[in-house]
């Protein structure tokens, strides 16, 4: 039933995309965008300027007070054509005539019968969209092979395979299983010893015990925390062009800890979205609200602060859409959603929840704005330090007042002190001095200050003292958090998404197509947060379980993991998704229980080896007749090298760190970032702790598709490029890893064969095959000879023997292998 309806909805909603109807396609491509961007701001269902709404075909045909806008088949009789051409009394749009070809398109469209695609807000789509329906778990179906089934997941998967006439793949061997589970749960390699113990553990439940051990590892929180940080668009800098530093790594650490503590997911969401609004919030709950402070802040000169505050608020709505609801809410910023039942009004209802943060915005003086760029923040230093800081600030304020006083006194006697001269600065400052101080702009004041600093010694002296005082202020630890204004801001619809054009006023509210906010729920972020994880909201559990599934199988049950709307793909296993979602809620939103469930399924444990028979039937392996091979994420690629080489510093959390990066990597931004690589343990921390500069992120991360933290990302690309190859071959870090790994290999065995075996065990968790053994042995021999006969090269390589250099070269080969950077 669900399937039929979903299929039906797809037909109803996206005829254009399916190319069934040329005239509808024409409307969608040529007419609708013009209506949306040029007409509907005034001619919509609410405003109905001149009585005309162009929101739906029905309304358009009904016309307005001036007459019939569109007569299907007769462009000549259609007022809209006359208005667009400006041939009659009326000329539209008021902003100026459209290009001829657009007007021509209207003629063609009307002549062809004025076809119309499905509109948002139509009752049919809402009712037919599968994802909006309540979760209806069904019992696991009967299947062909009850022995294969380990838990209900497998019944749902096998039932689909049965339908397609496919059989599942055999279970992966134990070495693959432990490597797979370790990478998936901790992002680190199992040690050869752990592999051996697991392989030798013949008692029942060995695999279940392995999964338990990995779930209890503190690295689990890091691994899954990093996935969440993609969604949270976490970074260490402010973004946009200046992209200065910020302090919010405590939020990152909060995520890691929350996952390790297995904080129930509903609380995980509530604390991040509205921890500050909980009764007597703890420090931890405040830190959690950094989630929605990961929005960017523009520090460029001359900007309109309000514009970028609005962008941040919009980003919070967009993130709510992709992180929890699986809906493309941002589409409704400028106009009603074209495909899904989300109105622009509803977008701004959601906007108003996030619109009250006491952050930089409005029409502020440049200097005032700059002083409160990061607000609101939570200060974390001890009271003594804070006290010293406050005293210091007071002193500075006093000094600032003195400086201003001094400035005014110099100004008062300007002409006597500075007779007319040919120094540009003096003359421009003279003009400025004539303007009363309260009428000057911040640019004028700063020009004046600079001139005074250069030409008035007593001013310079005092300004230097002030600078010194500022420098002496004690550093205070802080982290960015949410805090609302005492009085909420008024929220309006932004006409065409333009914040300078206010439409109707809106109040906080959710989407009409989902269960309503309870009447007693507070109309603030806390109310919204609770609504997101309320038992009858079907979206959050489906979206969350789908995303978890995606991490384990490469693709979600719904492939478009951030779009559960009509333009998204349909679930491959709708019943499985609902069963998982229901199970998730039933478990008390227990994330570790869900991981356990998936990891112990036969579906997960299958071999990932390619199967021609299955590929013929199901080329992209949606039915999961085998596991998928998945290239590791950027951070994990670093992490496996660190763990194989033994260099890993396993410290969890703390300020971000600076591993080496290629010289010149920061050269291409406005502000050339000095990157001083850490020495000591911080040089070898996991990839997730690398200091992340939005405008110039570490190339080793970006080249391997780490998101650039401009907006919430729910799935990464997995590209495979020559620049990645260059990085793995030649990057300074890789050379260090290879050297350490080479040394480790040398020390672990006595002969070449044994060492090669160790190399494979360390890197791939398995012994080499014959051909592999031979090939690498040949390579090592050749390298040793080569360095033997070339002492100069050996010297350059900084190894003390051809033997050592050759094994480092072999280690380098190992950490470049496809299998090494892949979860099989």
């Amino acid at each position, binding site marked *: 039933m669900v399937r039929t309806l979903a299929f039906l909805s797809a037909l109803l909603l996206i005829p254009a995309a399916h190319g069934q109807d040329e005239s509808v396609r024409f409307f969608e491509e040529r007419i609708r965008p013009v209506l949306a961007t040029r007409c509907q701001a005034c001619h919509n269902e609410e405003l109905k300027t001149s009585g005309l709404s162009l929101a739906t075909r029905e309304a358009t045909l009904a016309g307005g007070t001036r007459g019939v806008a569109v007569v299907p088949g007769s462009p000549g009789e259609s007022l809209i054509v006359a208005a667009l051409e400006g041939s009659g009394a009326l000329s539209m749009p008021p902003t100026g005539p459209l290009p001829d070809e657009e007007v021509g398109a209207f003629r063609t469209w009307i002549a062809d019968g004025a076809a119309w695609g499905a509109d948002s807000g139509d009752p049919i789509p809402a009712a037919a969209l599968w994802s909006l329906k309540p979760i209806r778990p069904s019992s696991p179906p009967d299947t062909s092979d009850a022995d294969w089934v380990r838990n209900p997941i497998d019944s749902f998967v096998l039932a689909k395979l049965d339908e397609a006439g496919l059989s599942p793949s055999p279970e992966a061997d134990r070495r693959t299983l432990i490597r797979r589970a370790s990478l998936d749960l901790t992002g680190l390699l199992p040690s050869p010893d752990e592999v051996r113990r697991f392989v030798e553990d013949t008692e029942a439940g060995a695999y279940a015990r392995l999964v338990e051990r990995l779930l209890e590892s503190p690295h689990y929180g890091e691994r899954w925390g990093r996935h969440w940080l993609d969604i949270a668009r976490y970074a260490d800098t402010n973004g946009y*062009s200046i992209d200065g530093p910020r302090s919010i790594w405590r939020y990152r650490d909060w995520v890691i800890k929350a996952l390790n503590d297995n904080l129930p997911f509903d609380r995980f969401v509530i604390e991040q979205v509205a921890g500050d609004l909980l009764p007597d919030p703890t420090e931890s709950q405040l830190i959690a609200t950094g989630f929605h402070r990961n929005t960017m802040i523009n520090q*460029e000169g001359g900007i*309109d602060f309000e514009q970028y505050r609005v962008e941040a608020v919009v980003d919070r709505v967009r993130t709510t859409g992709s992180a929890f609801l699986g809906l493309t809410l941002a589409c409704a910023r400028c106009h009603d959603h074209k495909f899904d039942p989300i109105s622009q009004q509803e977008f701004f209802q959601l906007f108003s929840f996030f619109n009250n943060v006491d952050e930089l915005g409005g029409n502020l003086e440049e200097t005032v704005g700059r002083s409160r760029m990061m607000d609101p923040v939570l200060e974390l230093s001890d009271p003594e330090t804070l006290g010293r800081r406050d005293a210091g600030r007071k002193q500075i304020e006093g000094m600032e007042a003195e400086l201003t006083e001094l400035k005014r006194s110099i100004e008062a006697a300007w002409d006597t002190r500075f007779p007319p001269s040919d120094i540009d600065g003096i003359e421009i400052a003279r003009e400025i001095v004539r303007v009363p101080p309260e*009428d000057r702009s911040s640019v004028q004041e700063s020009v004046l200050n600079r001139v005074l600093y250069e030409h008035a010694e007593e001013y310079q002296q005092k300004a230097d003292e002030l600078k010194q005082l500022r420098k002496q202020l004690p550093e205070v630890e802080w982290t960015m958090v949410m805090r609302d204004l005492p009085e909420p801001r008024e929220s309006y619809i932004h006409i065409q998404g333009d914040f300078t054009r206010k439409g109707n006023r809106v109040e906080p509210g959710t989407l009409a197509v989902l269960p309503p906010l309870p009447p007693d729920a507070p109309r603030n972020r806390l109310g919204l947060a609770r609504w997101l994880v309320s038992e009858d909201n079907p979206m959050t559990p489906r979206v969350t379980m789908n995303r978890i599934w995606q991490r384990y199988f490469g693709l979600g049950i719904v492939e478009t993991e951030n779009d559960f709307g009509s333009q998204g793909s349909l679930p491959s296993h709708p019943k499985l998704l609902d069963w998982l979602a229901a199970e998730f809620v039933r478990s008390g939103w227990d994330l570790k229980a869900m991981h356990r469930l998936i990891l112990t399924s036969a579906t997960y444990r299958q071999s990932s080896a390619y199967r*021609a028979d299955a590929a013929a039937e199901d080329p992209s392996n949606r039915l999961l007749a085998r596991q998928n091979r998945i290239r590791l994420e950027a951070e994990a690629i670093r992490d496996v090298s660190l763990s194989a080489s033994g260099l890993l510093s396993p410290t969890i959390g703390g300020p971000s760190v600076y591993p080496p990066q290629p010289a010149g990597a920061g050269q291409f931004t406005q502000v050339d970032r000095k990157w001083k690589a850490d020495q000591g343990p911080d040089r070898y921390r996991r990839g997730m702790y690398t200091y992340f500069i939005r405008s110039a992120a570490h190339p080793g991360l970006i080249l391997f598709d780490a998101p*650039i933290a401009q907006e919430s990302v729910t799935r990464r690309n997995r590209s*495979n490029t020559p620049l990645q190859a260059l990085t793995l071959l030649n990057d300074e870090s890789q050379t260090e890893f290879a050297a350490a790994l080479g040394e480790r290999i040398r020390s672990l065995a006595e002969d070449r064969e044994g060492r090669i075996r160790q190399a494979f065990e360390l890197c791939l968790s398995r012994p080499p095959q014959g051909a592999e053994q031979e090939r690498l042995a040949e390579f090592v021999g050749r390298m040793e000879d080569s360095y033997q006969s070339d002492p100069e090269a050996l010297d350059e390589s900084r190894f003390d023997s051809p033997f050592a250099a050759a094994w480092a070269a072999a280690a380098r080969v190992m950490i470049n292998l496809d299998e090494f950077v892949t979860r099989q």
Partner: protein
Amino acid sequence: MRPDRTTLRQSTRRQLFEDCGVGVGKLALTSLFVGDSLFGTESEQRRVMHHAPKAKSVIYLFMAGAPSQFELFEPKQELQKLSGKPLPPSLLEGKRFAFMESFVREPPKLLGTRRKFARHGESGRWVSECLPHTAQVVDDLAFVRTVHTENFNHAPAKIFMNTGTPFFGRPSMGAWVSYGIGSEAEDMPNFVVLQSGPRGPRGGAMNWTSGFLPTAHQGVPFLSGGAPILNMTSPQGFDHDRQRASVDAILDLNRINMERAGDPEIATRISAYEMAHRMQTSGPELIDFSTESQSTLDLYGAVPGGKSFANNCLLARRLVERGVRFVQLYHSSWDHHGGPGESLDKDLDEVCLSADQACKALVTDLKQRGMLDETLVVWGGEFGRTPMGEVRDTVGRNHHIDAFTMWFAGGGTKPGQSIGETDEIGFSPVKNPVHVHDVQATILHLLGIDHTKLTFRFRGRDFRLTDVGGRVVDDLLA
């Protein structure tokens, strides 16, 4: 179990097109499938080809900071006459500017230019004394004097010029082009970014990001001096032979695994390593200017081993010769507000001096080599500058989005003309306004791409470079 070869080959090919973004038509993976060519015809590289292209490559000279059209290309008698008078408030109504708070307090005054203008070439185009070299090739250029944009701060405006939206993180023009029409470069990335001048462009990597397109299409910034690409140099102790031997060992071990796992991604990785190795081999040759004649070096004013806009222009030609589709040169800074280092006199002189000769040289050199027909050269900033003066340490000009000048050469554009007219003081277009989306649509058009058809589905919507706008500027086409 052995994979089925046909399926594997097909999906491998698809994977390469999608993920690798390299010149697969010419890739030789001889050892992967014995006696079986992995790749089909060269035409398969192109994802789209909506019509016959005029241009094969683009060299985009991005004048970062926004050059003043009033000092370079737009003499306005009326503006000279009204210099010092306040701007009629009617022109300011409903407009937003950078540093607008200062306007409210003190209405800005119009500013005439101190630069001398003359007509040049047979086409009689106005160019000021600031650009004596550019003035010599005006008959090869097409000026558009009425470009207008939507964002008045540097970073969003640059992002807008490059991605069609002011939002950070959307795919840039070079990435769209690479994604759309693929590569002909055998050993170079398809979209290369070069930089000169005191600082990098505001917005950084967001100007050449691949956004939601596959990462392979993102612009690759070349470093000035030394190896142009990050990690292009082998580690110490690895000469060419040792590096080759290492790559061979990696490839062979990957092939063994390919036999076992059958995953086409492994084949893609094998080809990526082969390409990487070719890039390493050809990189030093690319930046070695010793093969250029002295007269060519003199034409540009390029110095072997130097870091300059001139060197980058010459490098751009060499990249295009090697099949690179999109080369973008950022040259800073043209942000002449009047503050320190931002004067319309000395500082403008300096940046003009650093750019002018090489611009001419690039057009001349491409023409001499018969490459100009297939290479589109674009010159322009992220917006223009106001007809009003702005008082800082000296009098400069503020950011202006309603009308500014760009020029185009080659690649199927019609030279020796000037498109669009602005009003008497150069504030707004009065004829032929050209929106940034129109510029983008036209560049794509010249490359054989219909800007409305090159789309990518993301977050439930088909996105394109020109968002929901853009029309091809027909007057610009030859």
